[in-house]
């Protein structure tokens, strides 16, 4: 897996697992061991998607009537 910020490449398990706030989505947050940035990771594709900053929502918005229940990555 390659970090989207610094380009560091390693197997996904080397990127420290932080958490997934929506267990029904395949997106989690992991930390790059090189630049220490927090990344959104597609656990199905084993691919880093983007950096997660304050207020960013790798899981998309809440399900329910607020209208946007899309996850950052569609699950099969």
């Amino acid at each position, binding site marked *: 897996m390659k970090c989207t910020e610094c380009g560091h490449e390693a197997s*996904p*398990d080397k990127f420290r*697992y*932080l*958490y*997934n*706030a*929506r*267990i*029904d*989505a*395949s997106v*989690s947050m992991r930390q790059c061991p090189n630049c220490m940035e927090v990344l959104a990771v597609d*656990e*199905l594709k084993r691919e880093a998607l983007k950096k997660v*900053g*304050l*207020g*960013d*929502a790798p*899981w998309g*918005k*809440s*399900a*329910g*009537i*607020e209208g946007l229940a899309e996850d950052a990555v569609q*699950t*099969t």
Partner: protein
Amino acid sequence: MAEPALNEKIQEFEGKQQWWWAAEVKRSKRLDYLRKAVWRKGSTGGAPISPIKLDLEPALRRIELYKQFKQEPLPLRMAKIHSAMWGSDLIYIVDQSQIVGSKTPSPSTEEWYGSGGIGNAAVYNYPEILPEPLEESLKVVHDVGQFWDQEGEAMEKLISGGDPEDMAKYQSGAIAWGSLIGGYSGKNYEYFMTGKRAFEDIIEEIEENIAKAEEKTQGVSGPDILPLYNKILNWEAMKLSLEAGIRWARRYARLARIIAENFETDPKRKEELLRVSETCERVPAKPPRNLQESLQYDHFIQVLARKEQVEGAWPARPDYYHGPYYNKDVNIEKNITKEEALDLIGEFLIRAYDMPVVLAMGKWVREGLQGIAGTWVWTLGGVKQDGSDACNDMTIALMQAARLVRTPNPTFAFRWHPKVKDEVMREIFECIRHGLGYPAMRNDPILIANAMHWHRHPIEEARTWVHQACMSPCPTTKHGTQPYRMASATANCAKIIEYALWNGYDQVVNMQMGPKTGDAREFTEFEQLFQAWVKQMEWLFSLLTRTVNYARYVQSDVVPRPFLSGISQRAVDSGLDIMRPDGERGNAWITAFTWVENPDSLTAIKKVVFDDKKYTMAQLMDALEANWDGYEEMRLDFVNAPKWGNDDDYADDMMLRCLRESARFSRELKDPSGNSWPILPENVSGNIHYSSIVRSLPNGRRQGDALYDGGISPGPGLDKKGPTAVLKSCGKIDHIVDGRAFLLNQRLSPTQLQGEKGYQLWRAYMKTWADLGLDHVQFNMVSDETLRAAQKDPEKYSEVIVRVAGYSAHFVDISRKTQDNIIQRTIQGIG
């Protein structure tokens, strides 16, 4: 600002649902000042919220007094130490305040009394809370710790007397939450808060009891007089404590008078200070005569009880006990206006908000009670002992004041019953709509029946109930009050399913914790797994309740409470320390953290492994061993299995089965009064604290993920069939006999629930809730946009409040993981 301009500002803020800015404009200058003068208490899961420092001097003074009174019998020693400390503790009066009294030596410090053994771990781990210079402070902490290590600290005495294996497992941090000393106090309000008596009256009763006892101990000898010697000591200790409390309050009277007569130049403020002085001269010595005295009386008692010992909760029923004084002052004699009453009540809330607990306490508190000092859940509404509606003008005034001052603590829980007036329901809805996260709604008829079922309280006593902590009802009567309930009967229930899978072994703490119930890889039928689960459940609940029973049994020999005894009728009548369970009906419950993971995991295994046969148990165990890493497709299969909260009998039946096994076993477990130990699923922020302590589970979570937010709430985002389905699932539980109470978090849309239409939608929802017989529900009503914006720019959103679990907190005062967990809770459309 001129009034039209003010109204315009308020409308602008309310239109944008920025309730916190609207409140700042609406409240009086006094309330605004007092609200902003508070240094926020609690921690964000690690660091303290405000740069508050510990004051180490009380710890040194306590040691000197301990040496001075060492030869005294224990109850008298405690009373004399407190008496001396309360006589010399620093006191202060906040400018513009009308209600005084603080546990802390100053607004920006908290007192530290010191400990031995591991009790000081938090102070070493968080040196930022120590005053400068750091080296000197660390030396004081070290010397204090050494002293208590040699003397034998109360906690060490307790632990060393208990069963060694129980204590080791309890202290592991894996299965239990809480301390063996410290917890949630009940209060015998029917004894001291009805206006019939105050401290001087109780002292008279005590003196009479001592005189009668001494007549016997100075008379003819016999075995019947032997218990009286200790009782006399206890009574003397109670009397000393109450007298010390009166003297402490009168120090505030003197201070207020000194300021008024020598320093204050504003005539109006001078008059207020003299009234404060008169109030403090009167209470708590004598019964209150008006609203200010009533609130001051209550506040003094709360502070004194907490100066005696840490109390992690705040059972109270402020509308019931202060309502008559409100009615007298505002409606009948018209001594004060409604606005003046609101100022007093708003300040009463602020004083409670200012009460500290957490700073020097360990990780389990910092992470488990993020954003607050303790769970101050005040009970409103309900019925009187004769069954009639207890709501009054004070009920409404408290909610109006709460919307003005917007303190996350105290939080309210409203005892709903079918005769609550629409006017009161509208006030409740306004609080929820303003994003306070409270009042939580409690189903009064259900909970009264529940209290009678589990703890045999007569109906009139059950009707007096208040929240002893976040959720559990407790009467306020002589035999019904539980004066103390250790937090330690709090179970990390996710470990039950974990141990059922791993043969009782905990790989996080590397110990054989639970019994060996078999290698799950070799299970060929679901029933084998379920029976393993039952055995682990029975083991866990037995260990925790044994520990708490033991601690309660020996508490009065190790750390008696003469002050709390002095305001408890059972203790005053009997001469026994109130911690003794003699004469108490008991109010025990097991707080079941991380409960829903159990039925959801069991359901997933039953469906995917044993019904659909998509994977074997061995394959599942391999995936769990790997923390689901590299097993994402398989993990999603387990996630997509039926889940609790969707009105699906396949999943809901598993919940009922787990609850009813626990209820069955609860009846075998007995507390020191001989009553049962029912479970009560709820979490505070324990779902975050345990996120790294619980391994991956078959519901699809990985180690590190937050556990569900608690009680019987479905997992975040896993309730996919709408709010009625959630209620229907929860309605399948029998909220009287299946457990003590059941917490349900729901999130509502601030957009949808605007205006009168929104109120009617909410009323319809509450009718369904009541008809289905649920006992609890509480609401978050704040949008994702606001919460995400608060994460990006916390300073601009510092006043946004969210309902975390059994309590509310400022959103910016909780950890990022907790914030994300709350945001992912499903917003239910109820239209």
